């Protein structure tokens, strides 16, 4: 790319104070929690669903695409996921887990079902060739800057944690979580003993947890 250098050296008129992240910080302090929005969805408020969609659609589509490997199928899964949220939000119980755990479980299961109905090759979640996923895709522009930034940071934290795992452990996690394979199927696919698969899954989750705790992942 031909760069247009700042040849004039004329200082930019930047209001230092205006550079602070005021609006997004206000958004963070004033915005409703996921759980509060889910409660509003349960009361039949489409605006609350739209807010949740804006927050998590990009992540849900990312997960669906990784599982199915098919853009059109993943978009169907995305829409169906939030439709399920709309229809069954009253069944969500915040004392049994976070809203995002519930949401991502719906998306993942729908994606795995869709993938099994249509045999499309899934993509690897992490590979050494991945230079930086942030360069490839950015979140929904309807999200505010603070939400985008949080998403970018979380993506980086989890990918760093995943990258720290031995490849064999990462493979087990990928096969189980993103491809919905049972432990027996994983053992068969990798040619390893079932006990080895158990050990790898346990160690992988322990290490991931330690890494994420160390980075204060929330």
């Amino acid at each position, binding site marked *: 790319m031909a760069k247009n250098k700042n040849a004039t050296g004329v200082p930019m008129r930047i209001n230092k104070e205006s550079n602070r992240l005021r609006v997004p910080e206000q958004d963070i302090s004033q915005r409703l929690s996921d759980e509060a929005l889910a409660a509003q969805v349960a009361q039949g408020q489409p605006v609350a669903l739209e807010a949740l969609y804006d927050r998590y659609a990009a992540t849900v589509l990312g997960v669906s695409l990784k599982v199915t490997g098919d853009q059109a199928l993943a978009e169907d899964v*995305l829409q169906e996921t939030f439709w399920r949220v709309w229809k069954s939000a009253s069944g969500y119980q915040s004392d049994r887990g976070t809203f995002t755990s519930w949401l991502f479980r719906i998306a993942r299961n729908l994606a795995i079902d869709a993938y099994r109905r249509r045999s499309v090759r899934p993509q690897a979640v992490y590979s050494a060739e991945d230079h930086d996923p942030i360069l490839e895709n950015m979140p929904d522009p309807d999200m505010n800057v603070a939400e985008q930034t949080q998403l970018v940071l979380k993506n980086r934290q989890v990918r760093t944690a995943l990258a720290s795992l031995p490849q064999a452990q990462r493979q087990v996690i990928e096969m189980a979580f993103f491809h919905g394979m049972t432990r027996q199927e994983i053992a068969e696919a990798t040619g390893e003993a079932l006990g080895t698969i158990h050990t790898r899954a346990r160690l992988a989750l322990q290490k991931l947890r330690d890494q994420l705790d160390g980075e204060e992942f929330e």
Partner: protein
Amino acid sequence: MTTMDPRQQVEELLPFYALDALCDEERKLVEEYLADHPEARQQLESMGRAASALPYGVAPVEPPRGVKEALMARVTLDAEAQAHPSREISPQPSRRAFSFESFFRAFSLATAAIAIIWVLILNRQVSHLRSEITTLNGRLVEQSESLEQILQNLPQTNPIISVSLKGTDVQPQAQGQLIANPNDQSAVLVISGLPPLEPGRTYQVWLIGDAPVSAGLLTVDENGRSVLIITSEEAIGSFNSLGISIEPQAGSEQPTGEIVILSDLSEL
């Protein structure tokens, strides 16, 4: 052949329970064990935290506008249908003695009444659906126009790029990301690993072309993190590098203190 200890069996299954990758029979076995063993629930909670973070490890993908529009149209229709449910026809109980003729008359009248009401309801629904179709057609036209505008603008649009920033020898643990469209005049700066400064001192961000230009003051939280939106009258891609220095509280016209972050922006 020996039977496996239930505790050992569940311990082997727990990671896959957390990953939601068990068959129904295995899941049931784990849940029955968990009900009576709080220490196993604690183990699961720990693994579950790691498993529930996994979706964030996938690169987010911006959905096409049409998905949201279709979803919200579907949801809006459903919300309206829930707000105006069809009335149920509940026949009044009769106290008269039963006779075939009276029963037949009552039955005929009731059937006719139900038919008339049903027709009215259907008409109302048809009218409502027509109105919705008109609205949706309008939205479709608007979206098509927007899409055309977007497509026309596409050749001039550059992708969002993220550049890694690294600490200098003064603060080697510091790092960050500058996320920007090179042609835009704003960018998001995400920093971590910078220690909070003593009172009277502040971090100052510099965009450096031929000369450093202040891009704002930066305050880190107790964990050494900060997020700052940088705006500029010139495209962010026109600068060669980005630096962060320690300056007096009010900031400086030019860098005067120690440089804690300095990174090349040639990737923009």
